[in-house]
């Protein structure tokens, strides 16, 4: 049963990949969407007992077949669902299905074969993500892990005739390889240490141990896995591929950012919650990486002009929040944010896609504005998403983000909490900058279509999202509004259902965290005692959210010259931010160029040309040179041959005679 969840999208991929060029758009899109819907149905049926069944159901497992068996090493291809995986498969298939439906309309301008290619990739992406989520051991997860990397490459570079898109695809793939390397090393080390790759076995092997006080093997495993996670989940130092991934079609961005790919890193940490909580040092690193990434990406998002780029940096920033939560040991809160984020980020991306669709490929917000009237559905749904991500009370983002900030504060990391709050302010500001620049104010829309692969240059007529897109936007907007109610905190009279639901997946990790906490300083962890703190904190973040929106209103809506004046006033800061802290340039000079230099000068010119080619050519030249010298002796003159013969005889006889 479990195997069907990834298998059906995979079959959808196979059909579209094999027969795609002969199928009409209706059929190939229909196959892809049906596959996702079927997968969602099975996922729902699988998750149902976890959601509404008895509380003592911990995991359902299916051993598909024994994949590798070599000596002591056995790697079954087995899938397992526990509450965490149940939530993930619902997000992946559910949001994934909506994105598929949206794409049927969004990609309609492509030719039939390209259309089928697109949907085959989308299906494959979902299939691999489901393998990643369902895998019961590192090796199966790694299959999905690499698979989503491949699909991200294929989809980001979907318009491969465009150099920038092809480059962005390669960049995503290569940066991810760096992370994958960490994943592999972590996996190998875990096998050496525990003798198994099964997540549950590793967790139960670790459970009786105390958390590592010093940096030991477990910490090393966790750190290596973290490297893998930063690659997939776009955290410092490997986040650089995600903003460039905007070169792909917009539904792809939504898929990568909401349902698949970037959540993999967070999921990896959640999956190995026990392991990570036995490595407190690494957990702190996770939290710091997350916080710094959140702040950095938030500040960059503030000044970008490409609507999708702002959203991309916003994703990086929100993933930073999830890492912060993971680092605080609040795995439930992190996954909760992942789940709510999936709704509103998919919504925002698809909304921006609707805008881009309406403007025939225009992505620059400086050439938008005043679209509120022309695109009412897009506007209202996008606004819902923006309110949700900004953390306005009552919407999804508020509950999850607040939970993360509360847990951070509760753990006594006031500095990280402060940065989190600051990022929250930035989030509200840049999101409403997007809203105001895109939908409000005077129209700055160019009179005809922009030269982009999507528009095809047909004359521009502003049209709201077609039905397939609009319905998806509305569904997601409802989701973004209400998804948070599964995790209403105790302080507001809820009982935080989602964290209770997820708890079995992280079990014994919470105990380890508590042990670590009590051994150092006793921080209040009981939820009852912290109500007193949680409510004021909530008030602070609410004020911050509205403050950010207000700031954006002032800067980008009311006062026409406030933002430019600010930019000129702090020209240095502005330049650093628009250039994204020069990180790409630094990587270029610090890593890419030395590598190219070594490859070119050392490996190519030195090793390949000199040593390898040199030795082969050298042998040839030696033989040739020797032959040239020796053939001079072959004069053709009979008498010189006779002389040589005679001399030879004399020498040999002389040798025997005088020896």
């Amino acid at each position, binding site marked *: 049963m479990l195997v069907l969840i990834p298998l059906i999208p995979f079959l959808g991929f196979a059909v579209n990949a094999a027969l795609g060029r002969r199928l009409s758009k209706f059929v190939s899109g229909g196959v892809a969407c049906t596959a996702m819907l079927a997968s969602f149905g099975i996922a729902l049926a699988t998750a149902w007992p976890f959601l509404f069944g008895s509380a003592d159901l911990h995991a359902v497992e299916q051993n598909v077949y024994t994949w590798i068996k070599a000596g002591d090493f056995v790697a079954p291809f087995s899938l397992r669902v526990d509450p965490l995986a149940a939530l993930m498969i619902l997000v992946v298939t559910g949001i994934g299905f909506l994105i598929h439906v949206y794409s049927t309309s969004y990609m309609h301008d492509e030719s039939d074969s390209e259309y089928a290619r697109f949907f085959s990739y989308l299906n494959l992406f979902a299939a691999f993500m489901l393998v990643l989520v369902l895998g019961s051991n590192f090796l199966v997860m790694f299959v999905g892990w690499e698979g989503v990397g491949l699909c991200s490459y294929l989809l980001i570079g979907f318009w491969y005739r465009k150099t920038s898109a092809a480059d962005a695809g390669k960049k995503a793939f290569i940066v991810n390889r760096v992370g994958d390397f960490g994943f592999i090393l972590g996996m190998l080390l875990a096998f050496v240490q525990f003798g198994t790759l099964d997540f549950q076995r590793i967790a139960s092997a670790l459970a009786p141990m105390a958390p590592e006080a010093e940096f030991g093997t477990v910490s090393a495993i966790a750190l290596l896995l973290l490297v893998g996670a930063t690659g997939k989940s776009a955290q410092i130092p490997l986040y650089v591929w995600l903003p460039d991934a905007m070169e792909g079609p917009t539904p792809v961005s939504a898929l990568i950012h909401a349902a698949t790919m970037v959540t993999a890193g967070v999921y990896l940490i959640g999956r190995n919650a026990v392991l990570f909580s036995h490595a407190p040092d690494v957990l702190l690193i996770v939290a710091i990486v997350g916080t710094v990434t959140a702040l950095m990406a938030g500040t960059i998002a503030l000044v970008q002009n490409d609507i999708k780029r702002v959203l991309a940096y916003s994703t990086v920033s929100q993933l930073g929040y999830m890492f912060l939560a993971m680092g605080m040991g609040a795995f439930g809160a992190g996954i909760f944010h992942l789940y709510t984020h999936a709704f509103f980020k998919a919504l925002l991306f698809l909304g921006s896609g609707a805008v881009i669709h309406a403007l025939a490929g225009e992505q620059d917000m400086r050439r938008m504005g005043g679209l509120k009237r022309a695109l009412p559905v897009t506007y209202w749904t996008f606004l819902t998403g923006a309110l949700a991500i900004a953390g306005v009370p009552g919407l999804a983002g508020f509950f999850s983000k607040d939970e993360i900030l509360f847990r951070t504060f509760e753990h006594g990391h006031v500095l990280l909490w402060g940065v989190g709050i600051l990022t929250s302010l930035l989030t509200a500001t840049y999101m409403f900058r997007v809203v105001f620049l895109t939908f409000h104010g005077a129209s700055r829309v160019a009179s005809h279509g922009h030269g982009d692969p999507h528009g095809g240059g047909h004359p521009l007529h502003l049209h709201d999202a077609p039905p397939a897109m609009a319905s998806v936007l509305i569904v997601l907007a409802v989701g973004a509004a209400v998804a948070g109610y599964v995790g209403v905190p105790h302080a507001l009279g809820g009982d935080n259902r989602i964290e209770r639901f997820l708890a079995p997946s992280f079990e014994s990790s919470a105990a380890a965290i508590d042990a670590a906490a009590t051994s150092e300083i006793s921080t209040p962890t009981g939820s009852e005692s912290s109500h007193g703190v949680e409510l004021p904190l909530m008030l602070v973040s609410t004020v911050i959210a509205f403050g950010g929106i207000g700031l954006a209103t002032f800067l980008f809506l009311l006062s026409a010259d406030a933002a430019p004046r600010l930019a000129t006033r702090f020209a240095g800061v502005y330049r650093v931010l628009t250039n994204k802290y020069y990180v790409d340039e630094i990587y270029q000079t610090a890593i890419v160029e030395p590598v190219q230099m070594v490859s070119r000068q050392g490996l190519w010119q030195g090793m390949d040309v000199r040593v390898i080619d040199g030795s082969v050519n050298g042998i040839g030249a030696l033989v040739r040179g020797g032959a040239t010298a020796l053939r001079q002796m072959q004069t*053709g003159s009979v008498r010189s041959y006779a002389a040589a013969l005679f001399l030879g005889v004399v020498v040999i006889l002389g040798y025997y005679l005088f020896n």
Partner: protein
Amino acid sequence: MATLNDYLVLSAVLFTIGAAGVFLRRNLITILLAVEIMLNAVNLTFVAFGRFHGSVDGQIIVFFVMTVAAAEAAVGLAIVIAMFRHRGTLNPEAFKTLKW
């Protein structure tokens, strides 16, 4: 009374004359004659050894050498005539194309 050594010295001198003739003369027929001198120098050695060791083996080998030399002279002269017809000269330096 001539000793074995005297015969051997004479034979060596004859052989050297023959060899020098083969290497230095510029006429194929002369070269063939020089080869004959070398063969007969060797024949002289065989006969001398046979005489001084009281064995007939030396003389038997000499008969063989003489028959082979007769055959060789016939074949050699035939080749020389063919070569002369081909190139119009008997200078061995003219026949150097068989190389490399």
